[in-house]
């Protein structure tokens, strides 16, 4: 079920009503309702893969308890069982064909002509990368004595399958989400209201910006060989906005929905395009994933302690793995590697932690010239990396970039659906200005005290969605494929 679908518009009020009106007095019943709602939500897409979520839930619930009660040696074995099980599921559904195909190509290089097609027609279950990481963190936290296992299976099932963040995150830690599910929740008007505001903002980003840019980006990336540099630059920049508004829009709707059910999720985006260097960008982009890799991969590998060469290795490992997490394609690995190359110089010059606190512009109205230049240079590098992320293959990405730097003549490019260009530039300009205005708090996108201004903004957001709505496109979220 998509957040931006008519089914969800019907689903949400029913779920909300049942949750707060019918089941509010009984926590167990409320949690059971959450599990049922989450399974309906997920099963609406493909009910067959519910068995996978259920299996993952049962296995990690049992293993979690085993890890906790076993001695150190056995507990490590149980941990490895959990890791192998979760990574095994992920590996089979997401990476099997990639590895077989790459292996086959490697054999060809060495002269073995493998005629048999070993790849399988595997459907990628939506959200598998997200919920496997979530359950994995449960086992890892218990092993590291940061969490005690729960004995409440229903609560654990609700934690694994919690529908707002089930298919595209934010990837929640058990230590943060599970206690909220285990404790009685009471309805808060302010929390629900804030949730609705976030949902509106997220829907605006998805419908008015990401979906509106999608056909342009698709057209440019398909026909890049015939287009000039300015158009290719526009294609890459538009994709940057498309993926940001698509994914952060999803996260906002997820966080907003969750607030309506009395549960707080982690922030996933903090205005990443106002980052002043790549290190800051990664503290603001897909936060739940980057912190996951930091805590469960980077730090266990040694983090930044010890030899610089080891740290550089660790940086490359987490960026490459992070890229590979996105999909079974070399383009994502190149994307991750490119970011590692951008990050390492910052680390070597001790500038990777200069923007840990505060936001661009501080308390002043406008950013300084220096900050503007820093933002522009970071945005340019990130935009170049998006070409790898969006291209169908590494070759295509390099061809795109080569063309981008070698065809400076401007040639008219009509909108693929016949719309006015001006609308898009005005929209993106206003969007950036507004995001800059609200840059201090990503969880409060409509911060005005005046009721009239808030109302005006609600109207403008809905009107913007209606103006930019396009029924010719696929409305699913980009991160569903990961």
């Amino acid at each position, binding site marked *: 079920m998509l957040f931006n679908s008519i089914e969800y518009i019907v689903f949400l009020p029913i779920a909300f009503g049942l949750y707060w009106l019918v089941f509010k007095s009984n926590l167990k019943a409320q949690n059971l309702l959450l599990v049922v709602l989450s399974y309906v939500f997920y099963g609406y897409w493909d009910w067959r893969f519910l068995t996978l979520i259920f299996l993952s839930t049962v296995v990690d619930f049992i293993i979690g308890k085993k890890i906790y009660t076993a001695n150190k040696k056995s507990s490590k074995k149980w941990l490895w069982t959990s890791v192998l099980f979760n990574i095994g599921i992920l590996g089979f559904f997401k990476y099997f064909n990639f590895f077989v195909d790459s292996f086959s190509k490697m054999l060809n290089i060495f002269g073995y002509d493998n005629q048999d097609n070993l790849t399988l027609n595997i459907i990628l279950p939506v959200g598998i990368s997200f919920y496997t990481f979530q359950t994995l963190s449960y086992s890892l936290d218990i092993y590291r004595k940061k969490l005690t296992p729960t004995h409440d299976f229903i609560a654990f099932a609700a934690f694994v399958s919690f529908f707002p963040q089930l298919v595209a995150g934010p990837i929640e830690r058990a230590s943060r989400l599970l206690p909220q599910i285990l404790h009685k929740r009471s309805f808060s008007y302010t929390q629900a209201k804030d949730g609705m505001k976030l949902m509106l903002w997220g829907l605006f980003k998805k419908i008015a910006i990401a979906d509106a840019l999608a056909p342009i980006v698709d057209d440019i990336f398909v026909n890049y060989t015939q287009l000039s540099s300015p158009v290719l630059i526009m294609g890459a920049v538009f994709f940057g906005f498309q993926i940001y508004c698509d994914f952060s829009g999803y996260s906002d709707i997820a966080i907003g929905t969750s607030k309506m059910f009395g549960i707080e999720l982690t922030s996933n985006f903090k205005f990443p395009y106002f980052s002043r260097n790549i290190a800051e960008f990664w503290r603001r982009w897909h936060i739940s994933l980057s912190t996951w890799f930091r805590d469960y991969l980077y730090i266990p590998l040694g983090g930044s302690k010890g030899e610089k060469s080891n740290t550089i290795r660790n940086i490359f490992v987490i960026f490459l793995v992070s890229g590979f997490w996105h999909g079974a394609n070399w383009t994502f690995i190149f994307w991750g590697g490119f970011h590692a190359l951008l990050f390492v110089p910052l680390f070597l010059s001790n500038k990777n932690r200069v923007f840990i606190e505060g936001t661009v512009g501080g308390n002043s109205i406008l950013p300084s010239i220096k900050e503007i230049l820093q933002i522009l240079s970071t945005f340019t590098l990130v935009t170049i990396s998006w070409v790898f992320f969006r291209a169908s293959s590494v070759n295509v990405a390099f061809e795109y970039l080569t063309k981008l730097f070698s065809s400076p003549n401007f040639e008219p490019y009509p909108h693929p659906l016949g719309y006015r260009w001006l609308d898009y530039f005005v929209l993106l300009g206003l969007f950036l200005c507004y995001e800059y205005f609200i840059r201090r708090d990503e969880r409060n996108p409509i911060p005005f005290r005046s009721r009239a201004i808030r109302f005006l903004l609600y109207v403008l957001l809905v009107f913007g969605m*209606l*103006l930019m709505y396009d029924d010719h496109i696929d409305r699913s979220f980009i991160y569903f494929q990961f």
Partner: protein
Amino acid sequence: MKKLVIKSIVYFVSILVVLELLARVFHLHSEDPQRFIDPNEVEKRVPNSEGFAVTGNRNQNFSKFRINHSGFNSFREFNPSFSNTEIALIGDSFIEGFHEDYDKSIGKKIEEQLNNKTEVYEYGYAGYDLSNQLHLLQAYAEEFEKIDYIIIYLDYRTDLNRDTYTPDRERIQTLASPIFKIRDRFKIILYASRIGVLDPIQELIIKATPQKKAIESKWNHEENRDSLLLNNFKTLCSKYPINYTKTFFLIDGRKTPSSFLDYCNVNNIKYLDYGKIFKETDLPTTLIYDQHWNNHGRSLIAKLISDSLPTKD
């Protein structure tokens, strides 16, 4: 909880009211002049009205229409006479031309190409198929008797699905039903409906209508569709005799089966194939976000007609 529900409803209604105002101020909605069935059982528009048709979101295609005294969108009134030269252009929405200003229509272009010595009457109505068109010829036989050339636009795939004419009272009734009246009264709903926001709701309703599905699937499994359509054509032509000396079918040869073209050739039924000229041109011939002909497409059609008729000086 109660506060949240009440405030949500208040905000929802207030936002809708402001959106309604905005839709009216920016004229985002398309006007659809009222349809009716006249005493001759001909479906047409209620005469004498003007308005604007809008296609796409954000007023991408904004055009003025004018329903004349005869109930068709045209820049002129239809007053045929034996002394003047007239051309009748009959067809569906492609001829009705709500996607263009009425004074830039195909008819107007034909008249200009024929040095304004010929009058072109556009009998276009969205939804017309061949049975509608032939019934129109029969119902207004006296009028068409005076007209020198008759061009009938025929989309082979969609215009031959029936072999007899009955006025579509159901559609008129549906459009006059309370749901459609509400839709037409609230411009924001009309706009949302036009751009596809309400499509999922309509799809849900269609999904919940099994009877219609069954009919559709039966039609889709029809093996000899082309021959069935040709039979319908033959039946219609025998039921509504056509003056073949002055009648031309305007067809897209690329989308019309050769069996039909052969039948026309054998029986001296004249047709104008715009598929050839559309194929030859490098420029797009239809609107990008709409299947209808754009200005270039209309110019090509007008040229084809004016070049093909012996009235040109």
